[in-house]
């Protein structure tokens, strides 16, 4: 078992192959590379969302922002982050104070929004901070501006996917587009996922959403992701549904879903 795969210029996979060995063990260089990657992934999970930076970014784009927090106890802190990881159920609902504020805001609106974009930290604040606004930059020009009445962009700390259902419901929005930090992999601490849900209300299941995953430098590009999101948004409005039903209907009668 002494032979190794010849190391070509580029390996056909990002899997950790051809590591070599010392005795039976992984050599020091590879061992330390692993430890660093694990440290980055851990930090991505535990870093708290930089809300003011996101608000500032929205301001620069002339977009309104609305800051929200999930029901996980207390202000965002390292301690509350541990609580958040143990209690996914609390990350799926709004803190009552923030739900109240959002309801008040919704009542002040003349017209209910067609869609709401939500930026949530999920399991990687890093992913949202890095890719959330650039993805909006790529997406918004592809949507017909006069065609979509958009709610302010909601920024949610300690939030899971399903929290979008409550937010969309309180706003009376027809569609939720939630951008969230995915569970970090060892080589992908900043992967962003997008979940699109028609007629959001608490109790929606994942089968009723469409998901676009792995948006990051080494994965799906902003442009490609934006194309897919715009496709789902338009199809959702046309068919008045999302999830498996949208996929099936789109595949049958309309343009194929961009892959």
């Amino acid at each position, binding site marked *: *078992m002494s*032979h*190794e*795969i*010849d190391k*070509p210029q580029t*390996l*056909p*996979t*990002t*899997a*950790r*192959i*051809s*590591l070599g*060995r010392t*005795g*039976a*063990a*992984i050599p020091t260089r*590879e061992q330390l590379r*692993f*430890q660093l*990657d*694990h440290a980055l*992934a*851990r930090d*991505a*999970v535990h870093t708290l969302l930089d809300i003011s930076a996101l608000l500032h970014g929205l301001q620069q784009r002339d977009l309104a922002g609305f800051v929200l927090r999930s029901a996980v106890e207390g202000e965002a802190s390292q301690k509350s982050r541990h609580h958040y*990881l*143990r*209690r*996914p*159920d609390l990350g799926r609902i709004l803190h009552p104070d923030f739900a109240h504020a959002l309801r008040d805001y919704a009542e002040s609106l003349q017209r209910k929004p067609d869609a709401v974009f939500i930026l949530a930290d999920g*399991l990687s604040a890093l992913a949202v901070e890095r890719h959330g606004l650039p993805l909006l930059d790529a997406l918004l020009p592809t949507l017909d501006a006069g065609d979509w009445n958009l709610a302010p962009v909601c920024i949610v700390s300690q939030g899971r996917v399903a929290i979008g259902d409550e937010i969309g419901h309180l706003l009376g929005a027809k569609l939720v587009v939630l951008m969230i930090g*995915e*569970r*970090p*992999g*060892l*080589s*992908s*601490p900043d992967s962003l996922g997008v979940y699109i849900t028609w007629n959001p209300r608490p109790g929606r299941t994942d089968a009723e959403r469409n998901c676009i995953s*792995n948006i990051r430098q080494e994965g799906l590009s902003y442009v490609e992701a934006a194309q897919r999101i715009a496709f789902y948004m338009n199809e959702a409005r046309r068919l008045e549904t999302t999830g498996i039903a949208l996929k099936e209907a789109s595949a049958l009668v309309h343009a194929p879903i961009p892959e």
Partner: protein
Amino acid sequence: MLYSHTVRGVKHTFADLRTLLAKASPLRSGDQLAGIAASGAEGRAIAQMALAELPLSVFTNEVVVPYETDAVTRLIVDSHDQQAFAPIAGLTVGEFRDWLLSDEATGERLSALAGGLMPEMAAAVSKLMRVQDLIYVARKISVVSRFRTTVGLPGRLSTRLQPNHPTDDPLGIAASILDGLLLGSGDAVVGINPVSDSVDSVTKLLRLIDHVRVRYDIPTQSCVLAHVTTQMESMQQGAPLDLLFQSIAGTEAANASFGISLELLDEAHAMTRELKRGGLDGKTGGENVFYFETGQGSALSANAHFGVDQQTLEARAYAVARRYQPMLVNTVVGFIGPEYLYDGKQILRAGLEDHFCGKLLGLPMGCDICYTNHAEADQDDMDSLLTMLGTAGINYIMGVPGADDIMLNYQSTSFHDALYLRRLLGLRPAPEFEAWLSSDGFHQLQRIGQPAALLPQGDVR
């Protein structure tokens, strides 16, 4: 039925069997999330005392999930072997622990007992056991299964070669297969988790593994871990499927959330046996064709736990598994996340419990020793569990390039980890695979250099 126990003059009561089991269960974030864990350490210790005094015969009279509404309960009750149970029928759970650890409980006697044990009995006794008890008793039991290799013999350690790729790219997968084979991995199975659950994709991956296996004369078996119905369609298309995969859980409702029932598993099992692949003579067909994956917390995750603790439900999944005399059962212990198993300590104990309960119930247990990046765990925790499961006599572990699964985004054990364990404990691969490692087929593989050479013709990029 109400259960009570008096400690230092104070009477403690438990509403029913499932409540007693849940309160006695070692601390688990999943049981806390479900709101069924003991409220504190004292409550847990008292529940364990109460559980220790419970006669095992209680389990034959009271179920934790209703018989009428749950097919797994019916399977457990209806297949209970009274004769095999007889030797321990008069014991309490506490006395059962003492017996398991005694010299009287030889490997032979333990194997004969398997059919007489209900999963809840195994779960109950495990809750009274320390880590060394879980290791020591499991070590006495050997469960051997066969397809093209013989897995689970004493003194042997096998691996599943897991060459996953984020886009199912054949060349990327081939590269990981080659790397693993050259490091002596893959004697339990070469098993790919596909990204796409489509029939074409599954068939293509099965052909890839089969091509490599036949060309280099490798004694191993293929598996692509798609949904069982997808694999059935693949078989109908003529795919060279060796092992049939499915995730299973401990309640009918949780299994329904996976899109399976016992009837469906029966059908898929029969269809796979019909292929008559494998078997040590290569003609009659292997008898052990199923590869199951399980893991504590899956029933709660599917909102189908019925107030039963996650460790007891995990043991109930083994009742489903043993119906089919599987080739491999794999508890994917740390994959589910910190809301079910919070940290390295909880993952470690869960892995040892699952291995113990599975072996006691007669299953060929392996373990995906693993964690996600949002759990409080790291490589040191995995090394601890790896070493302990090695001493406990685990049948097989995973072999993932550099322990980093780039498709499923979690950390498991590497090809190197298996080499470490084999060297440390003097364990050898499955005998057929061990012979292959010094054969012409292996030497040819060492010389090919480029993974593209492994692909079937017409599949080279």
